[in-house]
């Protein structure tokens, strides 16, 4: 009897959790019919926001991948004094409130800032804000992914005549690939939803700096249908990212499971 009661409690908690988390997502689609959603996609506000988001996300993630991957590889494969300090510095934006990140970017790149640039309130500012808040997520995951590559495989590549570059491209990169993809999916999702740092550093100017999340906020008082339509689009994109993330993770796991594992007899 007691066992049944316990199970009923667990089941009730699970159903409440599920309902609470799914309901808002379902509500968006019950309030906006597919027809309205399709029609709103040709709304210039939505259109502009889509283009700004796509451009800045693409550029920001290219920046994150091109600079973050070598950074992570270096930090994963070298041990040096102050390494953990460097890693902590890279992780700091993760825990920083987005508004603080925005102010920081302003005083770093603003006209009155450290670097005296005219970047603020341009599309470049959006790209930088997105890269700033999403990059650390990727670098963190990438360090872990490179650290998980068996060092003996890197050694084996070197003894087979591969220099550092060939070893990186033929061994480390493909083996860390799943982890890198998973990290990038998270960074992509975080960047796409970026709001606080962007509005502080780049403003919310339609066609220039107004991304999808900023457009939701701007349209909120004006046209609720637009808000819902953008919401619907973002839900679909986010779901796609989640699926991609799961695929990347399972691919990594299957690759690791295929490696030969045996009770190791250690010798030095």
């Amino acid at each position, binding site marked *: 009897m007691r066992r049944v009661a316990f199970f009923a409690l667990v089941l009730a908690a699970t159903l409440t959790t599920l309902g609470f988390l799914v309901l808002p997502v379902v509500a968006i689609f019950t309030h906006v019919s597919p027809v309205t959603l399709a029609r709103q996609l040709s709304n210039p506000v939505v259109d502009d926001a889509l283009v700004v988001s796509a451009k800045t996300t693409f550029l920001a993630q290219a920046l994150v991948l091109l600079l973050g991957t070598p950074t992570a590889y270096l930090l994963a494969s070298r041990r040096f004094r102050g390494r953990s300090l460097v890693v902590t510095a890279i992780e700091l934006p993760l825990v920083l409130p987005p508004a603080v990140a925005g102010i920081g970017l302003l005083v770093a790149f603003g006209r009155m800032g450290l670097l005296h640039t005219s970047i603020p309130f341009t599309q470049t500012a959006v790209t930088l804000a997105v890269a700033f808040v999403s990059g650390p997520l990727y670098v963190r995951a990438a360090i872990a992914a490179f650290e998980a590559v*068996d060092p*003996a*495989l890197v*050694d*084996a*590549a*070197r*003894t*087979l*005549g*591969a*220099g550092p570059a060939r070893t990186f491209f*033929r*061994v480390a990169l*493909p*083996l860390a690939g799943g982890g890198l993809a998973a990290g990038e999916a998270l960074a992509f999702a975080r960047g796409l939803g970026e709001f606080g740092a962007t509005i502080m550093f780049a403003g919310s100017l339609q066609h220039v700096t107004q991304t999808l999340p900023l457009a939701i906020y701007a349209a909120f008082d004006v046209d609720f249908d637009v808000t819902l339509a953008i919401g619907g689009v973002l839900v679909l994109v986010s779901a796609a990212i989640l699926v991609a993330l799961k695929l990347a993770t399972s691919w990594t796991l299957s*690759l*690791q*499971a*295929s*490696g*030969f*594992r*045996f009770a*190791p*007899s*250690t*010798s*030095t």
Partner: protein
Amino acid sequence: MDALTAGLRVPLRAFDVDLTLEVEGTVALVGPSGAGKSTVLRAVAGLVRPAAGRVALGGDVWFDERTWLRPDERPIGMTFQQYALFPHLTVRQNVAFGARGEVEGLLDRFGLARLAGTRPGSLSGGEQQRVALARALARRPRLLLLDEPLAALDAHTRATVRAELREVLRSSGLPTLLVTHDFEDAASLADLVGVVVEGRLRQLASPSDLVARPADAFVGSLTGANLLRGLAGPSAGGLTELRLDGGGVVYSTDVLEGTGAAVVYPWDVTLARTAPDDSAQNHVAADVGSVSRIGNRVRVSVGPLTAEVTAESAERLAVREGERLVATWKATATRLVAL
């Protein structure tokens, strides 16, 4: 073939690896785990940079005060403890990774043609070992470095793979430095065996010399068994007889046909002035080659065999070099391994 000369000092956390080696033919380093054996291999390969020393193959210097060649610049073929096959590449791609010549012939030679398209994860331990060797040899190396080549295998596969490996080492003719924690593996594969303890070379000698004349009690305990090579075949009473290469016959309860070796532990061998009339099947009458005392025990080499008896028994028998003795042991205390 060029010989490898290596003088190395590599500081580790607990001790320094500090030794000098010359490798012609096959040299095995044995010792307990954590003795610094693998560090020696890694330093020769260039994966670890020694604090001081000199590494050269023939006239080519790889490391000294002025020279440092990176691992990819050294003509070596190395295999690793867990083989370190690339899990994302097929067998063929693994073998081709550093290949200087054609790959298909090597795949054929190592019986891997059928498996060429598969990934290493689905191979057995013995097959992985062959891929690792083929991959190392594909680079046309001038020196082979093998780190615990048999440790990852179960006892059954191990004997077969050991025989295969012996054949590969013999036919390649390359100077080979290998590392193992198992004296039997070392004795069956190498011409010379070096015992490494805490980074130092305690003794470097032929396997039979190590058994007969261990430098100290530790070497004595590590170098377990006599290894007597010969040709095995069935004999009366369900026993196997091994016709020794050096003459004589040894009987064993193990089953084996073809070339192999008898493994006999020195403490299973008794000594007498005349052949005793007892249940033991194996008797070897020969002159005493050497007498070495280790603690309260004495190692006595009689012909191809070494016996270990108590100091007291050695005294009672008045064992002296050059005298004729009979060594006796049971067929049940005779393990046979394929070679």
